[in-house]
């Protein structure tokens, strides 16, 4: 082995200014998240897809001269053509119009379910976690019992009793759906509530609701967002499932679920009637999932470099 003589070493010059210099611009948490999210190609693709889908849901029904509910019995089960871009169904209704009209309903169900879960879950979980003690014990016991109820079975029962409709479907989906969000929020709040900044806020005399909404919830926003992005595709899936069981939104309303379950019956002769709604269900669920995954990876500090 080669000997290294002492003379070869040179003392390094200590430069305080250099050591203190910031090599990276300082970034806020959300900026950091958005940079990491944008690096994830698949997640960005999903996001663009979602934006396109929402755009079409808003403007799609106006792009044709047809109405989603008007029957045209002279032109039933037409294949896609320049007149009817996605063809027509068994009552001659334009599938292009119905698809985007259905997108509104399917996305609305997803968003509404996610938002209601969010509000109840954040309140329930936040109060349980922040109060702690007996309150937490009782509230979470209730949540645990509800958590044990098989979700889809309860939704089916409720839909059978309450009758088909947009409102009843959202009600059925959220009646125990919020429990998941509550558990996640509680977990986050438990972790956060003993941190110094919360203590500082309390010492300064901030009210409970201020601590909750200014300090705890914003810091738990990451997991809340991820949970929400994953609730939406679930709701859309559930909607499709219910439609297949004949518990979907009533006619002549169109949702992707009802269109697909009608399309399934006509698969052998008029495959386009299944193809379009099915494709958009899959694309939407795919997009929400990759966005949710990307968001989770972007938010997870463990993956930070």
């Amino acid at each position, binding site marked *: 082995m080669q000997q290294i003589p002492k003379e070869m070493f040179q003392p390094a010059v200590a430069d305080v200014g250099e050591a203190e210099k910031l090599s990276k611009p300082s970034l806020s948490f959300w900026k950091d998240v958005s940079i990491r999210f944008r690096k994830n190609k698949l997640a960005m693709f999903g996001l663009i897809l979602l934006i396109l889908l929402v755009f079409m849901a808003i403007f799609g029904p106006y792009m044709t001269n047809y109405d989603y509910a008007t029957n045209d019995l002279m032109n039933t089960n037409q294949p896609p053509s320049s007149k009817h871009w996605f063809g027509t169904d068994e009552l001659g209704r334009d599938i292009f119009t119905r698809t985007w009209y259905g997108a509104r309903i399917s996305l609305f169900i997803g968003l509404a379910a996610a938002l209601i879960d969010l509000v109840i879950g954040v309140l329930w979980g936040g109060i349980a976690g922040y109060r702690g003690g007996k309150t937490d014990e009782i509230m979470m016991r209730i949540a*645990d*019992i*509800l*958590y*044990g*109820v*098989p*979700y*889809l*079975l*309860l939704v*089916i*029962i*409720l839909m*059978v*009793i309450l*009758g088909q409709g947009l409102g009843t479907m959202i009600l059925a989906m959220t009646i*125990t*759906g919020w*429990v*998941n969000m509550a*558990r*996640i929020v509680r*977990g986050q709040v438990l972790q956060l509530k003993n941190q110094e900044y919360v203590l500082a806020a309390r010492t300064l005399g901030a009210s409970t609701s201020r601590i909750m909404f200014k300090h705890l919830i914003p810091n738990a926003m990451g*997991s809340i967002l*991820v*949970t929400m992005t*994953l*609730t939406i*595709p*679930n709701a859309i*899936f*559930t909607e*499709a*499932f219910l439609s*297949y*069981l*004949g*518990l979907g939104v009533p006619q002549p309303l169109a949702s992707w*679920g009802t269109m*697909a*379950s009608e399309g*399934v019956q006509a*698969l*052998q002769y008029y495959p386009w009637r*299944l193809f379009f709604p*099915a494709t958009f*269900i*899959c*694309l939407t*669920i*795919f997009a929400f*999932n990759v966005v*949710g*995954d990307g968001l*989770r*990876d972007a938010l*997870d500090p*463990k993956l930070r470099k």
Partner: protein
Amino acid sequence: MSNLSGHILNKTAVKGEEGIWVFSAHIPSFPVKEHLQENGGAGNLLRYISKRLLYMLMSLFLIVTATFFLMRAAPGGPFSSEKQVPPEIEKNLNEYYGLDRPWYIQYVDYLVSVAKWDFGPSFKYKGQTVNDLINEGFPVSFFLGMESLFIAISVGILLGIIAALNHNKWQDYGAMVFAVLGISVPSFIMASVLQYFLAIKLGWFPVARWESLQHTVLPALALAATPTAFIARLTRSSMLEVLSNDYIRTAKAKGLSRRQITVKHAIRNAILPVVTYLGPLSAQILTGSFVIEKIFGIPGLGSHFVTSITNRDYTTIMGVTVFYSILLLLSVLLVDIAYGFIDPRIKLAGGKKGE
């Protein structure tokens, strides 16, 4: 559908390269590990099981109560859809089924009969009880469910391992494209398309009905599609994580063959998350069976249930729901307990020192 995500988000999913796709199967799971840690690690399995049983009973009580009162609130009496029944006969019918008594007696009666495993008569099919339906339909559903469980677990794990071992190669992409399809296509669409192409167009399988083993293949495949995709993704991400561990490098340094490393070191550890998924998996297969059995004309409990929904046969809906709930809660409990036995770290925490 996604109570599952709670745990997965907090626990397993953050691991691995892409985490796990979380949704479907809105099924409770209170992992043993969590419980034992919360109780200082010394909590014993017995206390855990009894606590879980208590919760299970309470959830069950809630379901039975909810179904009972919801069914009472249902529009129209059980005989209102019949052709005009003379009032005397209706009175007799009501008396026969105990419907003339006050609701609280009916409620207690119902609780008692459920506890005795008696789910009451069907109001649409005279002379047939819900128990008959269950006894007749459930074995078929059970067979189908087990077959798809087997397919989902074996194919899913295999795909996941192949994908992880060939990370970022075509095998990986192929398996993940399959997984994405399995996860984002609703089961009724998947089943109809499979039936159309594999049975009607290509004639590889019988189109429908339940006669021979051949008849079971296509429905089982269709039912297994989504769970297979889930398991493949789960195995892949957990395998990737395991493969990056130091002990794998040590094994390599020792000069073990790739095969030995994979079989003895990697797979064993990578498979644990799959076990936790078995509870939600059974729920998925169960609810999936409603649709699959209907599409393939299989005389299982799932298709009976769907028929009872279409016919608004309230007592059947009620009975089958309670039966399914018991089944699901039990299987989730069993899986959680099994997990406690499989994961050696929990055994240690439970106080039983090694073997």
